């Protein structure tokens, strides 16, 4: 820790982690700050422009957009977290097994990964979500069905290079069990790149979930959610652009924060690559 304190990349990563945590806290507390009932329909106040009463305007049935944004924050942001966790754990486990055992197991697993990756991910996710029925849980499952393959590839390539290292061969020749080697040498040494991938995945998962909700598969109508709100605003875009701009900017800002977070984590673990891919 002493040494880390002097590393600016670590400081930056800690700051961004704090920002992300604050964002989570905000998402949980946000409904308390809502000026209106997010479900209250007011047909006399339809598509009103931003005003003192309605800071972000009203939507096509007169609901307060600010209130809906605040109440939808948790749903829009937190759907990504189980997706990242599930795909990370499953993908890493499969990748490590594939890389460690090699041979036929590896060949079969990697051909399967290739096959899964061949499917158009967006439409495949939509198809799975539609098949399971609309809803947040089903969307999370649908997004996980394809998402794990990235981690599997990554963990496998890590294990392949680790296998050549002396400490792994040492563990092997001293008669350690496969399980011991997997959990005590391969997993801890490949975890950092997995964490980097996961930190970059969060923003994309938020985007994908917003996309599914936009298509009406994520969150069921009256519940507010940002992708869903964009879908509501789609038809009033020409006359009332604020119905689209505020939820769109909300997604943009959150994904940008997640991007900064992912980037700062990446800078800690891959300091050499930093100069050519950071911001």
């Amino acid at each position, binding site marked *: 820790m002493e040494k880390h304190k002097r590393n600016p990349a670590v400081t930056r990563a800690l700051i961004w982690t704090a920002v992300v945590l604050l964002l989570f806290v905000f998402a949980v507390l946000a409904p308390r700050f809502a000026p209106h009932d997010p479900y209250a329909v007011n047909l006399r106040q339809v598509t009103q422009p931003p005003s003192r009463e309605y800071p972000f305007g009203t939507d096509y049935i007169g609901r307060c957009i600010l209130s809906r944004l605040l109440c939808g924050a948790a749903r829009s942001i937190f759907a990504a977290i189980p997706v990242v966790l599930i795909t990370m754990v499953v993908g890493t486990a499969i990748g490590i097994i594939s890389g460690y055992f090699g041979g036929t197991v590896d060949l079969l697993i*990697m*051909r*399967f990964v*290739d*096959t899964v*990756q*061949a*499917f*158009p*991910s*967006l*439409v*495949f996710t*939509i*198809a*799975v979500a*539609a*098949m399971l*029925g609309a809803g947040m849980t089903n969307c999370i499952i649908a997004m996980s069905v394809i*998402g794990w*393959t*990235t981690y599997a*590839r*990554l963990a496998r*390539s890590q294990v392949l290079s680790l296998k050549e290292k002396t400490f792994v061969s040492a563990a092997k020749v001293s008669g350690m069990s496969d399980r011991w080697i997997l959990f005590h040498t391969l997993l801890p040494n490949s975890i950092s790149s997995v964490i980097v991938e996961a930190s*970059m*995945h969060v*923003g*994309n*998962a938020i*985007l*994908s979930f*917003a*996309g*599914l909700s*936009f*298509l*009406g598969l994520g969150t069921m109508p009256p519940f507010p959610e940002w*992708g869903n709100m*964009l879908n509501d*605003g*789609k038809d009033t*875009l*020409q006359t009332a*652009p604020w119905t*689209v*701009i505020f939820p*769109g900017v909300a*997604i*943009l*800002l959150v*994904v*940008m924060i*997640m*991007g900064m977070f992912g980037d700062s984590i990446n800078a800690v673990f891959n300091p050499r690559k930093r100069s*050519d*891919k950071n*911001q």
Partner: protein
Amino acid sequence: MGRYIVKRVLWLIPIMLLISFISFSLMHLSPGDPAVIYLSQGGQSPDPEAVAQVREQLGLNRPFFVQFGAWLANLFRGDLGTSFFTKKPVMQEIATLFPKTLALTFLGMALTLVISIPLGILCATHENKLADYVIRFFSFVNSALPGFFAAMLLIFFLGVKLRWLPTVSSGHASGIWMPALTLALTLSAGYTRQIRTAIIGELGEDYIRMKRARGIRERVILYKGALKSAMPAILTLAGINVGRLLGGTAIIEIVCTYQGIGRLAVNSITNRDYPMMQGYILMMALIYVLVNLLVDLLHAAADPRVRNRFVIESAKGGRRHGKA
């Protein structure tokens, strides 16, 4: 080389079978009786007698694997079944709309390169100066922009405010520009960054230093040297992405009401038009696999080392999590 090609092509068979199997299973894992769905497209619930008849006609009473076998056999004859919704052959529907999405993808990719090559060069030649920071900041904002929001912003500014382009793409000759610009807007961020990195990398090479030492003008070095060497990598990346994009334009097509295959696919999902959905997913996956194979074979032809390794991960850069 011959052995490598044979090996790759032979591996294609199990992969294609698995792709077909997954595509086919989607319908059978779905809740609801396809025969009921087939008959209730009009809105009213069908009578049981008609349902039994359709079940017989679609062969739904047969065991799962018999149905899969029949489906595969039809597939080999180029028959993907009949759409539940339009009652036309799925293959025909796909063949009509596929060129539209192909055109959109190519135009979008061309616009992306037109935007990001100059920006990438500008960033590389002004590394860590103001222009570099400004462009990188915008490309960062851009990378967080959801495709459907980008489409709506463009429709609002270019369509409603400036009236340069039609707000609804279908039925207009210039309809392709709105979705293509959206695609370019969402893609150019990543490309600018990639091109910047590629050119900075090239500029640090020894042969560039040699040229500098020989007193060749910086502009010539940049265009005849660095850009020329970086181009194949950039074009390969673009080529691979075209295969991936074909299945990724759906939401943009929907927002822009562009009559392409992605919109067809999503509509078929909403309509529970299973044969259509299966056909689309299958065709897209097959195209992706074939494009990848082609890229790998070209790499193998160019670089003998690749032939000894079975999969070229580094050349393809793996697959990142896609964005909607």
